[in-house]
C-alpha cells in the first residue's frame, strides 16, 4: 500500500500533474506520523501510510491556494474538502485527491500512554462511529490490502448516544460541568488553528472593533469563544476531531460539535460534506424548516 502510494506520488510529480504532494512522513520518534510536502520524485520515498496518520491535512490546502496539489486523504479528510469546495475556498480542479482506504487511526494521546510497543493502541473515538472507510470523492483510490478494510463494529450503534446522555442531564448539571470545562480553557486557539474549516483572514476572536468577547482568560470570555467557535462550525463540521486532539487542556470539544451535528441532522436532515453538490447549511433554507420554538 505504501509503495503504491509512493509510486502514485512519483508519477504525479513526474508528469507535472501536481506541483507538490501533501502527505505524511515518519516523525523522529519513529512511531508517529507528521505532515510533509513532497516536491520532487526523489522525496516521494518519505511518504508513509498507517494508523498513525491522524492529522487532517486539508488545512494546508488553504496555504497553497491556486496551485495544483496532490493530497493524501482519508474518508473524513475528503468530507472536509467537500465542504471547502462548496464554500468556494478550494477549486476541485486544483487538487488531486489520493484517497486512502482507512481502517481507522489511533488515538494519539492514548497511544502515547500505552508506550512504544503499540500493544494497546486503540482507535480514535471519531473512528469508532465512522461508517465509511472509502472516501466519497477521489482521483485515485489506494486500497487497503493487509486486512480487509472494515467498518467499525460500533458504527451501527447510535453514534449520538454520548450526546444524548449529556443532553439528558439537568440544566444546572450541564451548566456546572461546562463551566468546569471552559474554566480550563487557556484561549490558545489551537482548536481554531488546527481546524480545516477555520479560514477567516481575521477571526472574530482577534477583532478589536467590535470586541465580541473578552480577550482575557475568564469564564465569560472562554464561554463566548467556545460558543462562537461551535456556531461558526454549525453545518460545516465533519467531525475530524482535530480540535479536541489539539486542545492542550482536554476540553471535550467534539461533544459540542456533535451536539450541533446531531440537531442539524435530526431537524433539517443535513449532513456536512456528504454531498458534493450541497449548498452550505446556513446559506440555504427550506420553507418547511421547523419553527416550533418560535412564538
Amino acid at each position, binding site marked *: 500500500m505504501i509503495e503504491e502510494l509512493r509510486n502514485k506520488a512519483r508519477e504525479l510529480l513526474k508528469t507535472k500533474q501536481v506541483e507538490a504532494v501533501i502527505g505524511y512522513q515518519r516523525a523522529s520518534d519513529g512511531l508517529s506520523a507528521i505532515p510533509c510536502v513532497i516536491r520532487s520524485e526523489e522525496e516521494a520515498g518519505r511518504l508513509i501510510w498507517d494508523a498513525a496518520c491522524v492529522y487532517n491535512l486539508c488545512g494546508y490546502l488553504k496555504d497553497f491556494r491556486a496551485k495544483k496539489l496532490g493530497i493524501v486523504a482519508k474518508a473524513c479528510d475528503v468530507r472536509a474538502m467537500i465542504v471547502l469546495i462548496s464554500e468556494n475556498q478550494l477549486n476541485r480542479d486544483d487538487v488531486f485527491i489520493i484517497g486512502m482506504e482507512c481502517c481507522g487511526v489511533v488515538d494519539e494521546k492514548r497511544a502515547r500512554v500505552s508506550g512504544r510497543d503499540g500493544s494497546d493502541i486503540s482507535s480514535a473515538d471519531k473512528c469508532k462511529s465512522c461508517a465509511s472507510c472509502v472516501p466519497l470523492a477521489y482521483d485515485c483510490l489506494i486500497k487497503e490490502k493487509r486486512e480487509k478494510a472494515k467498518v467499525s463494529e460500533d458504527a451501527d450503534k447510535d453514534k449520538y448516544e454520548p450526546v444524548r446522555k449529556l443532553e439528558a442531564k439537568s440544566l444546572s448539571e450541564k451548566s456546572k460541568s461546562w463551566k468546569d470545562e471552559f474554566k480550563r480553557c487557556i484561549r490558545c486557539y489551537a482548536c481554531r488553528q488546527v481546524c480545516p474549516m477555520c479560514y477567516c483572514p481575521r477571526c472574530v476572536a482577534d477583532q478589536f472593533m467590535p470586541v465580541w468577547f473578552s480577550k482575557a482568560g475568564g469564564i465569560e470570555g472562554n464561554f*463566548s469563544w467556545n460558543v462562537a467557535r461551535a*456556531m461558526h462550525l454549525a453545518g460545516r463540521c465533519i467531525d475530524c476531531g482535530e480540535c479536541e486532539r489539539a486542545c492542550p487542556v482536554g476540553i471535550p470539544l467534539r461533544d459540542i460539535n456533535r451536539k450541533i451535528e446531531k440537531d442539524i441532522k435530526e431537524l433539517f436532515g443535513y449532513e456536512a460534506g456528504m454531498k458534493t453538490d450541497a449548498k452550505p447549511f446556513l446559506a440555504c433554507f427550506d420553507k418547511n424548516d421547523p419553527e416550533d420554538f418560535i412564538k
Partner: protein
Amino acid sequence: MINPRTQELKNSRAESWEPKIAAFLCNWCSYAGADLAGTSRREYPPNIRIIRLPCSGRVNPLFVLKCLMDGADGVLIAGCHTGDCHYSEGNYYARRRFAILKKLFEFLGIDPRRFQMAWVSASEGDKWVKVVKELVEEIKKAGPILAKS
C-alpha cells in the same frame, strides 16, 4: 459566566431586581408592530430594550451571546412571519440559525427561556404585548442571569 463588574451592579440591586431584556426587532414588521402597540396605548412591562435592525436575518449569534455575557437576563429576536420578509427570505435564514443556537445554549446549561424568538407582524400590536408580557414573566422565574451561573 459574567463579568465581575456587572455582578457587583447586580448584587447592589438584587432586592429590587427587574429583568433586563434585549430585543432585536426587524424594521419592517416587528418594530412597526411594537410601534402600533405604543400608539394604541397598550401597556406592557418596560423591561425590554429594543434594538432596531433591518431584518431578523441581520442578527448574528454573537449579538445574542454578547448581550447575555454582558448582563442581559434575556434576549428576544422578533421578525416578520415567514413569507412576509421585506427582503423575501431573511427570516428563513434566521430561523435555521437560531434553531441551532437555542439547542446549543440548552446543551451548555443556559436556561432556554432566556433566548426566545417570535414572529410579530406590523399589525400585531396585541401579539407584541402578549409576547413581551410572557417573556418578562418567564425571565422573572428564571431569575438574574448571574446568580444562576
